[in-house]
């Protein structure tokens, strides 16, 4: 592993950290906000970068440094869910009344929460790592190779997981839309997912 500190010793650690921070702040913030409730997202973002600063001597050089940050963010988000809401999620899952809509984190429960619309509901029904495979590529805009690195698996394994997850979402959506078509006017059917999406509180607005 090439240590960042060894790359350019003439530049101070703080300056190099600032460069990494500035370049990755937006996408790490997006990653966290998609997985952590708004009231906790800022804390988790701060935690990610504080960890990065504390361990800056171990951060690999570019472009792996960015993926390393995603890995830290993934762990921080997962730990947030485990520490903050594991028993709350448990109760929400067991309750008859649905909890507030938000997708579970990267290691969240399978199919937790209420129906937040066909697409989000289909995502929520996936196993956590399958869901994360789709989210990393389609929401966080990582390449398959990068997403595989974040998840700690081979690219081949990632491809398999990604395809499986995509196909399951496709099947779930087809079923949901077929149900919707039976219950509402046909002219409304194609817009189903988009209408459903607007009914879901945005994670960055709640």
């Amino acid at each position, binding site marked *: 592993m090439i240590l960042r500190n060894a790359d350019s010793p003439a530049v101070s650690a*703080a300056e190099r950290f600032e460069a990494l*921070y*500035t370049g990755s*702040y*937006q*996408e790490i*913030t*997006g990653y966290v906000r998609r997985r952590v409730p708004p009231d*906790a997202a800022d*804390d988790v973002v*701060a*935690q990610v*970068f*504080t*960890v990065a*600063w*504390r*361990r800056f001597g171990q951060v690999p050089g570019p472009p792996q440094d960015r993926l*390393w940050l*995603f*890995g830290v963010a*993934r*762990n921080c988000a997962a*730990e*947030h*869910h*485990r*520490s*903050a*809401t*594991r028993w*709350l*999620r*448990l*109760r*929400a*899952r*067991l*309750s008859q009344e*649905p*909890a*507030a809509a938000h997708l*579970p984190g990267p*290691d*969240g429960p*399978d199919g*937790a929460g209420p129906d937040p*619309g066909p697409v989000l509901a289909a*995502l929520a029904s996936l196993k956590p790592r399958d869901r994360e495979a789709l989210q990393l590529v*389609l*929401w966080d805009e990582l390449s398959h190779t990068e997403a595989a690195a974040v998840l*700690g698996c081979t690219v081949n394994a990632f491809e398999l997981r990604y395809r499986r997850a*995509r196909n399951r*979402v496709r099947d779930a*959506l087809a079923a949901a839309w077929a149900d919707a078509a039976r219950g509402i006017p046909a002219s409304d059917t194609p817009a189903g*997912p988009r209408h459903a*999406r607007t009914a879901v509180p*945005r*994670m*960055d607005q709640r």
Partner: protein
Amino acid sequence: MNIETEIRAANPVDPGALPSGDSPQAHRLLARILNGTTGYRGSAPHRRRGLVLTISGGAATAAAGATALAIALTAGPAGTALPGAAGGHARPVHATVAALYKLSRVAAKQRASTAPGPGQFQYTSSVGTGEACTVADHHYYCVNFRDQREIWIGQDGSGRMRDTQAHPFFPTAKDRQQWRAMGKTAPPLVGPPSDEHYGPGGLSDGPVDLSKLPTDPAQLATMISSRKIEGGPPGPAEDFVQVGDLLRESDASPALRAALFKVAAGIPGVKLLGTVTDSDGRSGIAIAFPHSASNEPSAMPSAVPASGPTNSSANSSTPSPAPTYSGSAASPSDSPSPSASPSPSASPGPGDGSQGTVLNELIFDPDTSGLLAEQTVLVRPDGSTKLLGYSDYLLSGVVDSVSDVPPPSSVP
């Protein structure tokens, strides 16, 4: 339809609306990080209820209370994999099974507790260890402290949380050294007492109802191990954590609690420790899940008192009364004796790490089966022990307002 387009369109966060790295918000956070003012002391309204052990890449760190950072630090980018997931854990031996079945019988005989109704709150008082870490330009240190917490959670997710941190001490001499080096720029070692109120949904995602879980041990075990109740990594280590989560719920029915003890008896690797005294001086029956510790965790010490000449914290001058591990059965070996003595030949456990074993312990009241406390204890290869963290559950009950406290009766 293009399924990927549909998923992209469902992105709950608009990338265009995200603050950039040059935004004022980003600059403020960067300044806080570089100035060392991004501690994690109780800023979030949540904490894990109990102790957690996460192991990655052979390193082990115990976390208690607010110690989320420590977990994040040990977990690598590739994610975590608990050793239990890899197998290799033996089924609990007869003595462990017998003790858990006895607790199951005790649990079944208890009076059912009531869940909070509309307008009511579930109150829990606990004391445990917390940790806050501070980062500055060239310094990094962590402080452990005693964290006393009261929480009221309503059926609608509203409530109140009162938190007091006290008796700070440094986990290691290096932390103390780093703190000293910061001089007067170091923030107070512990934060001020907090007392926060939350509206509906602020503390909990939904109303309380544990009644939907099966009370048949086999069915319950299947639901737990398949992560139908809670998410989490596979393997017996997580099974044990989830059983602990459910046993912690004070309004779980006697039948459910009875079943949970039987589920625990079937988790490979679970061991009976015998009678252990918690940090509050109460004796109970302890069961544990051992993890290997190839690197000695740096948490609760051998405390280095957090007293010093430069800090302004009112508590910083208090020599640390660090909780001490008071277990009378420190060995992870499976002992049929309810009062086993510390064993100098403590088994390093399934992981046979060079630094010994970390025990994730649950301590139960033998008379009521209630969960008294949780502890994480390092057992070194030479049999010596070190308490890494704890949570003692002191009082629990249903109350009518966030100003009420239940009468002293039973633990959760």
